[in-house]
């Protein structure tokens, strides 16, 4: 048993403190927005230049001038603001964003992140804002499956894929457990129907609980 993507997104949403400015990376982290209900005081930033981003829209509500970082048509909420790309990344690097949630190929126990390139020589590399986001927000959280499709742990002692950032991740949310990583120490914060021994076996890492 483990959490579904949607359950995991809800779990992450519950951990984001009210009053936070948050950037949700493209891919599954965008699911977190579905669980940020109207009673929550959380402001979403999208790095292509909007603070106060609202839900994705469809049909006649689509405005091609209003998209998120994944180029999906979205909406603006009352009190939204627009800014150019250099301001947007200044906002990020300047430590004004509280949390970013990113997808990942691999995360190391020391908080290194690999999420932009598998190292495959034939692949066309693309990095987007991943490297800026990883080092920019006050806290970088990762949302990912604990294992690859072939059963290898994505949480590792040392990343084998090319790095996105060094020691930048503080917390990793997976379908099996939530982990703290990085400078504050690697440990298990919460388990989802998985024992500590199972986590040690699945990852090959000597986990302990907080």
């Amino acid at each position, binding site marked *: 048993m483990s959490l579904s993507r949607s359950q995991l997104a809800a779990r992450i949403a519950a951990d984001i403190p009210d009053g936070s400015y948050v950037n949700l990376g493209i891919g599954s982290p965008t699911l977190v927005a579905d669980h940020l209900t109207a009673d929550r005081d959380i402001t979403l930033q*999208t790095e292509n230049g909007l603070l106060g981003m609202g839900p994705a829209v469809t049909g006649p509500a689509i405005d*091609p*001038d209003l998209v998120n970082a994944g180029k999906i048509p979205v909406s603006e909420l009352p009190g939204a603001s627009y800014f150019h790309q250099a301001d947007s*990344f200044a906002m990020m690097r300047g430590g004004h964003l509280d949390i970013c949630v990113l997808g990942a190929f691999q995360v190391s126990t020391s908080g290194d992140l690999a999420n932009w390139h598998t190292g495959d020589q034939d692949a*066309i*590399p*693309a*990095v987007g*804002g991943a490297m*800026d986001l990883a080092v920019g927000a006050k806290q970088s959280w990762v949302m990912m499956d604990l294992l690859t499709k072939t059963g290898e742990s994505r949480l590792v002692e040392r990343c084998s894929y090319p790095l996105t950032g060094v020691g930048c991740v503080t917390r990793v949310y997976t379908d099996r457990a939530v982990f703290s990583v990085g400078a504050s120490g690697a440990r298990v914060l919460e388990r989802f129907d998985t024992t500590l021994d199972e986590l040690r076996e699945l990852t090959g890492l000597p986990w302990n609980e907080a």
Partner: protein
Amino acid sequence: MVADVADALSGVADGSTVLIGGFGLAGHPVQLIDGLLEQGARDLTIVSNNAGNGDTGLAALLAAGRVSKVVCSFPRQVDSYVFDGLYRTGQVQLELVPQGNLAERIRAGGAGLGGFFTPTGFGTPLAEGKETRQIDGSWYVFETPIRGDVALVGGYLGDPLGNVVYRKTSRNFNPVMAAAADLSIVQVDRVVGVGDLDPEAVVTPGIYVDRVVAVGDREWLRERA
């Protein structure tokens, strides 16, 4: 102010570095790129966030064989097949730049700076060979400015003095690019009178802009009118 797109693109030389605004197709100056295609300049280095979507805009310029190098952050997309094909067959070079570095390098180019130290990319393959420095305990990578011979900018409304406002997230790279080229060319839906734009709302002051051309209301606003 120029009469039409052809006038707006006159004089762009072969081998130019061209900054092209837009994030995907939002704010992408498609009519100016079509004009550049007509104008015929080749062996271009294109600086843009993406490397073309579908068959329009930058993708059309790539398909016509006018581009020798692309500097961008995110070439690979679901509809970037034109670039993908050229890259795989070695017909176009790629310089991959993290998105925030791309924006800041262009900003630095327009602001007369010789570069900047950024934490982005430290310890990654994209910082290999670059100067690094520890400042107040954190590590930074030195990045150089980017300037263009030409900037193609996708604005919303402009005036004859070159003041420009943008629309929603189509602003993206456009303002920093407008400031960072020797010849800054802006397409807008409509050119309004001097004084009609609220000075408090102007995003790109006219000092940065050399040519403004009106291309008509964007399709989705025509439909709503």
